């Protein structure tokens, strides 16, 4: 029994089909618990007022926006090394979700920024690098759409994903150099004294788990769709041959 067995599409379809209802349930549960707890059962923060509650959408979506790209990078590497089609399709399936997460993080950040900083947008390093990440997602998806041969598309997007990762990281540190930050630093590190207060911490962790599960679930659903689409294409091609 190894992970690579799921490279077989049939096996992947069967296992993911069994897992999906459970994943949906867990996702819904953790999101509802985390968000309800966060929105209604936590006190308003000093200096922030009720706007602090945006954190329960903003932070998890930002987290998943970055993790989605990491997942695409890993899936692309697996495709390049071991040529498993499911892996390439999973990378393709993750891109629009990552794009949406980036957009959610940017929009909730703007809504939060208006009352706190007095502006919807500032050219702060974190904000700017998220905008750049957004552009990377767009480019990646556009390249997938543009190439007709599915294997060539998977190869080229994998190469782009790897090169893009390096440049995305580079941009992250380049914008640090270019402008001073308005955004606050990390407040959830394990090794720092000054962290977010405990009342906010627990629901935030639950929403983060919820967003993570949501991402996994959606990637599975979209990968299944891609596999089915590919099967339909193969069936149509076979019909034509006969």
């Amino acid at each position, binding site marked *: 029994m190894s992970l690579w067995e799921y490279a077989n599409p049939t096996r992947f379809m069967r296992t993911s089909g069994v897992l999906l209802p459970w994943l949906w349930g867990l996702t819904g549960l953790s999101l509802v618990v985390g968000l309800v707890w966060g929105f209604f059962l936590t006190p308003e923060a000093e200096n922030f007022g009720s706007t602090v509650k945006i954190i329960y959408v903003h932070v998890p979506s930002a987290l998943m926006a970055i993790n989605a790209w990491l997942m695409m990078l890993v899936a692309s590497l697996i495709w390049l090394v071991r040529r498993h089609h499911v892996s390439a399709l999973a990378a393709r399936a993750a891109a629009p979700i990552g794009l949406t997460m980036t957009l959610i993080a940017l929009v909730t950040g703007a809504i939060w920024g208006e009352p706190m900083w007095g502006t919807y947008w500032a050219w702060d390093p974190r904000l700017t690098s998220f905008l*750049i990440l957004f*552009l*990377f997602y*767009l*480019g990646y998806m*556009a*390249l997938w759409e*543009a*190439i007709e041969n599915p294997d*060539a598309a998977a*190869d*080229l997007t994998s*190469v*782009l994903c*790897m*090169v*893009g990762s390096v*440049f995305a990281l*580079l*941009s992250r540190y*380049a*914008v640090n*150099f*270019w402008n001073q930050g308005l955004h606050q630093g990390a407040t959830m590190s394990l090794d720092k004294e000054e962290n977010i207060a405990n009342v906010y911490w627990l629901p935030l962790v639950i929403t983060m788990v919820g967003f993570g599960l949501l991402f996994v679930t959606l990637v599975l659903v979209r990968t299944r769709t891609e596999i089915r689409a590919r099967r339909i294409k193969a069936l149509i091609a076979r019909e034509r041959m006969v």
Partner: protein
Amino acid sequence: MIALLLRDLTLAIRAGGGFGLALTFFLIVVVLVPFGVGPDSTILSAIAPGILWVGALLACLLSLDRIFALDHEDGSLDLLATAPIPLEGVVAMKAAAHWVTTGLPLTLAAPGLGMLLSLEPAAFRWLVLSLALGTPALSMIGAFGAALTVGLKRGGLLLSLLVLPLYVPTLIFGAETVARGADGMATATPLMMLAAITLAAVALLPFAAAAAIRINLR
């Protein structure tokens, strides 16, 4: 490989538009900016470093799809791929030819255009230096983008979508060098970063670009 470089240069010169087009585009961008923001020289000199760098970047972008597209159309790219020299070397030479026909003239023309935008006198040498150091990276990154889109019918727009985000670090450090030079501050850090980006791009991206071409020619 030298023969390939000379061939590309000859083609660019004789086919016309190689040198002139990017330069003219650069000139037009720089001329249009004062119409947009007004002729006030204090504003112009404040934004001049950024405008000059963005203009150079866009001018560079303009001729990127020619790097491989023409060779792909007439089949010489297939010959180059099967030639005894490594494809990585071919890519590097193509990028070098692109740099000689766009990056180098842009670098040389930039001081004149800097004058139009009333750039601070102290910044001129930094402008030339940063462009000379940074434009090879622009050509190399662009060659990678062109390699990704070489097989596509309408790759031009997609190429800019892919390449422009990759240009961000180069642009930041390049424009920062000139801006610091204009303010009389130390420019060593952004210049070193710029040089690092160029060296890394020239060293590593030919492999990625060659891999992309191999996929596209499959």
